[in-house]
């Protein structure tokens, strides 16, 4: 299991290639990548985080995923700082023997990273800067995991 919080861009292709490389016990790899959208002419995204708490919160979420599903490996990379439209903000990767575990764990990680890891997004656009508001949908997405797997 690896968790990385960094300002630098990451090489998605290289990360995906290296993940689960050389493993012959895994049949399924799922990745999610979050990209900066140029919504409403947005020119950049700035992500603030809580150094110290961030890695710990992500590791706790990844541990919980590993408890709930049978996973061969988990990777979470999340950037902070400024990034341009089209750039990758973050990625998760999950590997498992079977696809159901890999998919469920990746969705679980995303739902929890969205609203339980200390990141805050600010969109910079033609009308200035605005903090992205949390969506009710993100909070209610967590409910589907509360009944166990």
């Amino acid at each position: 299991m690896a968790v990385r919080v960094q300002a630098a861009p990451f090489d998605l292709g290289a990360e995906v290639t290296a993940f689960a490389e050389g493993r012959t016990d895994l049949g399924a790899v799922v990745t999610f990548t979050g990209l900066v959208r140029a919504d409403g002419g947005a020119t950049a995204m700035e992500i603030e985080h809580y150094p110290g708490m961030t890695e710990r919160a992500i590791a706790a979420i990844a541990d919980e995923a590993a408890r709930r599903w049978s996973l061969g490996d988990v990777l979470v990379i999340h950037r902070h700082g400024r990034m341009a439209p089209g750039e990758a903000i973050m990625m998760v990767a999950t590997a498992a023997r079977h696809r159901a575990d890999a998919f469920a764990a990746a969705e679980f990680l995303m739902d929890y990273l969205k609203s339980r890891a200390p990141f805050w997004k600010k969109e910079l656009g033609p009308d200035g800067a605005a903090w992205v508001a949390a969506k009710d949908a993100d909070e209610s997405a967590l409910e589907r995991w509360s009944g166990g797997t």
Partner: protein
Amino acid sequence: MSLDVLYFAWVRERIGLPKERVETGADTVSGLVDELVAREERYAAAFADRSALRVAVDQELADFDAPLTGVREVAFFPPMTGG
């Protein structure tokens, strides 16, 4: 007791600083917020709607009624928007 208080995102912007050392007599996070609000208008503005805020105590998500005994660091921020 004294502890570090951290602010993030628009809470940081409204209060105007990311971190400060605070001397408090409060027993809970709520009590600490009451003391901060009483200080200055910018704190009152930042904490006007507590339901819009989240709190972490020693880098773990917590509630406003969490006790402060032995706590070293309290952070206030809006709901997270990562991922």
